[in-house]
């Protein structure tokens, strides 16, 4: 009777190589899972870093463009300065008009020029500079934020 039980037990026992394969499989599954998390983390982090770099580069571009604008404006001002324009006018044989050479006539509807208004229309107000957390946060930062988020907000976020 006992021998019969042993035989049955032996018959239903997993083969050693099969147990080994299950262990290896489980281990590989864990490794695969960890690898996927690591890959996801790397992907998100790399994209965040690239976006951050892009923002920094664009910021530098803005400053450079502003400086370039100021340079060009100054160059135009130098080229059209009073002395430069007077020299060009004289070189083209223009002469200064004298008061006795001027004749005023009445022109109905004439509107005298007014001082300059440098702003023709209200400019758009720049919004408060904010970079969305998605562009600046690492996965760990995100976990950290979620863990430290107040429970009510966290639950609200989960329900949405």
């Amino acid at each position, binding site marked *: 009777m006992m021998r019969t039980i042993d035989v049955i037990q032996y018959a239903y026992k997993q083969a050693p190589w099969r147990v080994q394969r299950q262990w290896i499989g489980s281990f590989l599954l864990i490794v695969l899972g960890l690898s996927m998390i690591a890959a996801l983390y790397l992907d998100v*982090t790399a994209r*965040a*870093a690239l*976006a*951050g*770099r892009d*923002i*920094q580069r664009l*910021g530098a571009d803005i400053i450079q463009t*502003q*400086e*370039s604008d*100021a*340079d060009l*404006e*100054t*160059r*135009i*001002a*130098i080229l*059209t*300065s*009073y*002395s430069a324009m*007077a020299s060009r006018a004289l070189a083209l044989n223009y002469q200064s*008009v004298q*008061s*006795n050479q*001027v004749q*005023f*006539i*009445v022109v*109905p509807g004439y509107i*005298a*020029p007014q*001082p*300059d*208004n*440098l*702003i023709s229309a*209200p*400019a*758009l*107000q*720049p919004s408060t*500079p*904010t*970079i969305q957390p998605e*562009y*600046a946060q*690492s996965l760990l930062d995100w976990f950290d934020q979620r863990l430290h988020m107040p429970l009510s907000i966290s639950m609200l976020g989960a329900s949405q």
Partner: protein
Amino acid sequence: MREQYAWRSLVLAGILAFVGVSVILQIIRIQTSPEAATFRQQAAQYAETVQTFYPERGEIYDRNGHLLAGNETVFEIGVDLKNVKDKHAVALAVGMELGLNPNELYRLMANPPASLAYLILANYVDSDKALALQQLKIDADEKAPLGQPSDLSGLEFTPHPQRTYPEGSLASNVIGFVSREGRGYFGIEEKYNDLLAGTPIQVQVPVDPNKAADIPQVPNGTTLILTLDRDLQAATEQILDDSLTKYGAQGGTIVIMDPRNGEILAMASTPRMDLNQFWNYPTIYRNASEFNLAVSMPYEPGSVMKILTMAAALDNNTVTPTTTFLDTGSILIGGITIKNWNDQAWGLQDMLGCIQNSLNVCMSWISSQMGAQNFYGYMNRFGLGHLTGIDLADEAAGRLKVPGDTDWSPSDLGTNSFGQGVAATPIQIMMAASAIANNGRMVMPHVLYAMVRDGRQFNVPAQYAGSPISERTAQTLDQMLATSIQNEASLAAVPGYRIAGKTGTAQIPTEGGYDPTNTNASFIGWGPLDDPRFMIYVWLEEPSASIWGSETAAPVFAQVAQETILMLNIPPDTIRQQIAQH
């Protein structure tokens, strides 16, 4: 045998596990140790760096949008001494492109101060020159063998902004300048330094590139639009310079103001300086008050002040235009005998004659009839002895001695009436006279037309400094002054336009009394009389061609007035009357 391997494997695994666990335990121990806070603090110090973002200094424009002060990028050129490969090549390239001595540059690089890693070779280099040198370096880098530094390695270029003045010396006495440290000196640059400079912002920037940080939007300094008209300013400066030569004057100033609202249209003064070379300031000016005579240099204005005396007397009902006065050629006031400018007696005069012939005796009589309290009360309300509040740095208040002051004497009541013994700046006299030109209302002179900030333009409204005289008094005196210009066929007259004005010839006080030979020649006038669009003040210091304001300052006024009429497109009286009838 197999058991032996198994045992060894077990031992090895045990050791590795022990090391691993030890590392983890050590990490946990460090994290929870008392020193952990110090470590975190040290790490935090290197995790972020403080960066200061400086706003671009606001620009300055004239009333028609011409740039008077702007910014341009210049370069600091230096060498990283650790990375420089060929000092000779660097010295030669920099020397050739920037016009510097290569030997001197090489000497600097070869013998740098101890512990210096970066050496500045040149600063404030024009972008054209710097970019040419930069291109030379790029070419050298491309020609260098792969992975090897080029002959110009170590050369570094750092751009930074610099204040620049496209018009050079034009309106220099009004604009002022900005030092290399970014601080404004004199004029608008000093008065509105805080507005123009803006507010620098400091932010913590993470070093970790994974942590993108917001770059703050630093608002630029406020842009200012001035009331000055560039072309009129240039013409005024030209006339002033020509007048100094023509009349042999030591210096001078001409100011043009809109008497309706106090806007300064032009303000020329001598000497002037190229603001792009502000370091020449000490060689041009002896002291700060010389930078802008119109606001910083009080002087005894002489007979131009008679218009204020007459205004006060008319307003106070002490006299009327028809009141007569017998001029005997002298009058005793406070123990001092006062005489006329030509030491002559002018006989019976009405008030028009007194002002037209600029009679000191008559004016002294008027002020004595008013009494010190009334006379000084009016002068005080006209703003003499007080700052006008013009928005330019270094304004001087002048000096009006009043009864009660230790240095006031009764004779001052007489001399002050014709502008001696009292010190005022041209801008003070203009502000006071604006009450006469502007129906009794006195305007505050100002140079700022508008401010541009955050994409919006804020215009500066005209401000009034009270009404020292009534509208009727102002109109009466206006007519008297215009008639006197017509009657005496003054050199200040402008054909086609009715102008009101008054000359001034003032003796110059010295330590030992008044200078017997030199005078200050002045003229103040405004027009057209029925709708004043300009008020002009001329002051010529010690003209040698003639000591009289009527022969020097008056014709200069006429010249400036004609130029102003052209620039402001003011039609003659007859045309304006036609327009009014339409």
